[in-house]
């Protein structure tokens, strides 16, 4: 029977298992990420109309957007919040996949997901620099120095990021180009591959059932996705009411603030580096990356996908849980418990 069809319907399977629509199955994290991405795209294109990547002018432009344009502040806040919510939701999505074993038999898609996480971090990082204020400038200075610790590729990576030896006008141009063109291009490719693989691998991973109950995607899957998307949007809009995208004073290359911190998602590495440059900055992140990359292959348990925390996947779950907790701890310490000269100090 030829029903009415369109591109949107074409992307989705005609029937979907009822179980996967439960919030406890996926918690809608994938849709949350996708919504954030769309918000970033729409707000980003708007901001693009008014921004200029030039050292002093960039700051002026941000002021212009935020104070002179009507709704400029709203758009910028949404952009900032969506970027951070995307990163957090992405990590939670990763955690859900691991704890539920949904990676089993889907290693290629798993790697696509990891690459997506990498470009999320990179997008956040390049966007952070664009206002060219004190926080941005020194965060990039510290962040690029952290990158330089990597043996071999470190210095080349640093000079690639900075467009030279030091943070300067080249860095701004480069960050801008990466942020608005190169990375969105990669986003497009990777998202398409990621979503396509979900279908190729058999749809959303859920527990094996003898007689799976299926419901038609139209309307149920679409309504679930729309609901998740709108709830994400509500979250962003409510946060935009209270939280303003930060803007400190103009960048001053001669006068660093004390302490100078990397953006929150890298401040955990900065904290680890303060103990040991090689171990904290290179070895541990590398090992974490290695583990994440190969986790699905390390998991020898038989097919137990779709169930939370099964005994067979205990080792992988444990290691990942420890990694997650320790990194969160590092971030909390680095962000809130370190003051002047990186001295440990409670904020009260």
């Amino acid at each position: 029977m030829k029903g009415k069809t369109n591109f949107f319907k074409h992307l989705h399977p005609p029937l979907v298992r009822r179980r996967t629509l439960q919030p406890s199955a996926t918690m809608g994290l994938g849709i949350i990420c996708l919504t954030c991405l769309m918000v970033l795209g729409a707000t980003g294109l708007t901001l693009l109309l008014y921004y200029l990547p030039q050292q002093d002018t960039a700051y002026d432009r941000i002021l212009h957007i935020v104070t002179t344009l009507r709704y400029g502040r709203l758009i910028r806040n949404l952009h900032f919040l969506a970027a951070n919510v995307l990163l957090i939701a992405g990590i939670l999505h990763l955690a859900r996949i691991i704890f539920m074993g949904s990676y089993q038999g889907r290693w290629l898609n798993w790697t696509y997901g990891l690459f997506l996480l990498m470009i999320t971090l990179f997008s956040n990082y390049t966007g952070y620099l664009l206002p060219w204020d004190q926080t941005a400038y020194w965060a990039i200075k510290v962040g690029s120095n952290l990158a330089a610790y990597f043996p071999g590729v470190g210095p080349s990576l640093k000079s690639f990021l900075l467009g030279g030896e030091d943070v300067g006008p080249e860095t701004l141009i480069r960050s801008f180009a990466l942020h608005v063109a190169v990375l969105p291009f990669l986003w497009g490719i990777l998202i398409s591959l990621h979503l396509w693989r979900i279908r190729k691998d058999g749809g959303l991973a859920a527990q094996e059932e003898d007689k799976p109950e299926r419901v038609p995607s139209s309307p149920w899957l679409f309504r679930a996705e729309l609901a998740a998307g709108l709830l994400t949007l509500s979250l962003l809009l409510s946060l935009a009411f209270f939280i303003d995208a930060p803007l400190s004073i103009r960048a001053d290359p001669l006068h660093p603030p004390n302490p100078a911190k990397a953006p929150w998602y890298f401040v955990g590495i900065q904290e680890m580096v303060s103990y040991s440059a090689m171990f904290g900055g290179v070895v541990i992140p590398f090992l974490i990356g290695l583990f994440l990359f190969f986790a699905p292959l390390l998991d020898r348990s038989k097919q137990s996908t779709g169930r939370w925390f099964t005994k067979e996947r205990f080792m992988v779950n444990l290691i990942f849980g420890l990694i997650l907790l320790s990194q969160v701890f590092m971030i909390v310490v680095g962000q809130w418990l370190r003051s002047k000269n990186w001295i440990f100090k409670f904020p009260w």
Partner: protein
Amino acid sequence: MTSSKDPTWLNILLLAAIFLTLCLLLLNVYRGWKEDRMLHYSGPSGHSEIIADITVNLGGLPRREHCLTCHPQGKRVTYSGGSPVFRNHPNIAPHSIDDLGCTGCHLGEGMARELKISHGRGARKVLSGEDLQASCFRCHELKPLQGAEKAWEGIRHFSSNACNTCHNVEGLAGGVYGPDLSDVGSFLGLRQIQTAIEDPKADLENSIMPKFSLSPEQVKSLAFFLKSRTKESFHETPMMKKVKIQKQARVEEDAKKTPASGQDLLREKKCLACHKFKEEDGKVGPDLTFTAYMRDEGYIKNFLYSPGREIPGAIMPWVRLNAQEEKALLSLLGKKDGTGHFHGKRPKHLYMALCQRCHAAQGDGLGTIQPNLANFPRAFWKNAEFFRMVADERMVKSIERGVPGTSMPPYGELLGREAISSLIDLIFREFIKIKRTDKGEVQNVPPPKKILLAKEQTEMVFKKHCSDCHGVAGNGRGPEYHKYVPRPRDLTNQPYFAGFDDQRIAQAIYSGVPGTGMSSFSSKLSLETIWSLVKKVRDLSRTRQGGGGKANG
């Protein structure tokens, strides 16, 4: 067709989500609209959608401003009972707003249209009223200028108060001891500059800048001058600047007048900005009035060349004089006019005239110039335990011959034995509060029984037990040094340790030093370790047991 198995709860969820999103969206939209109307006051004729957008060209740099949206024709806006009141911008001819715009003089953020942000933060904080003088000398040449009298005062103070001995400002030939202030106006706001002068140790606790005794007006005028030292130049290119400085340097060279003599020399060379000489007092450094009775020519010459060699850690910058000036200075400081003779004066007056400046009227070692000295003056008040273990002869010697490596000069020639003894009696009576003869049992540290530790082991012990206070390099600046008053001793202080014997160093480690943070290590370290550390101190200070010291006075 629906069946009972359909997840109909999704319908409810979706409706709730749509409703919620709509509400929040409208809330945000309403707020954005309201902000635009209310917070951005847009012109005297009511609500106008047009934003005043002008671009002025300041020295080749285009500056775009929205200030005139809320301040039409530069008028000052105040609110009385909800409605705006305008006051015309004062006449600033020959300057004009069309040429200069607003932010060139007033600073602030031109591209913003919200009150708090457009009035700037930090270095860009808007200047108004009297503070505007801080902008004048960004463009104008450094000479007296009508309307910028205070700022011109500031320029004079910068030189006469010895600021340029340590700080360099481009074009005003300054020193290099302190941070270069050529661009300080681009980095600090007016109030921040004032605080930096009034309270130097506020931002960086281990700053070596002394607190000069300046009136608030003097500080303000200095701040006006320094705020005008900025990176960007609106009216001259870097090439023009360079040529101007070269011309200025040549003019200064040509104007070499005959050197002043006597006290004028001290004033001209800025010594009096810190030191005391007869009646004039800078209140930052020691009293030089009686130098003739304390130091010989060789010492003074060496001191001027490198103060840190005679008193390690001294914050006095080095002084370079030509032959004529040096001769004049030495003859001035070396003049023994009998008026300074203190034989027969009462000990109380002696203390007030000579000791109080460092040791304080209270005798607690926190005198007026104490923050600027490299070594803390000994505390007498509540320090009985220390003086119980110090031989009387040592006290007499300290006053008579001074303590090399510190700011304590020899008073022997100036006072004489009798006066010194009566002074010591006074100190015991009023401050230490014990009998001068009340001495405790001081046991010598026994010699080591086994061989001393190897160099690497000593290093490890030093790092573990000593470096937190005395620093890895032994210069008294370890990570914990700021916790202790008096500060940990600088172990590299050669003149200081040259006069010691090993027993005294060992005693300090073994029994500790009362009245300071140096605790006793006899229970924590073996005798051999202690004597090895004594050797380490000798290495650090480059001295030897019983000699190698330079006699003073």
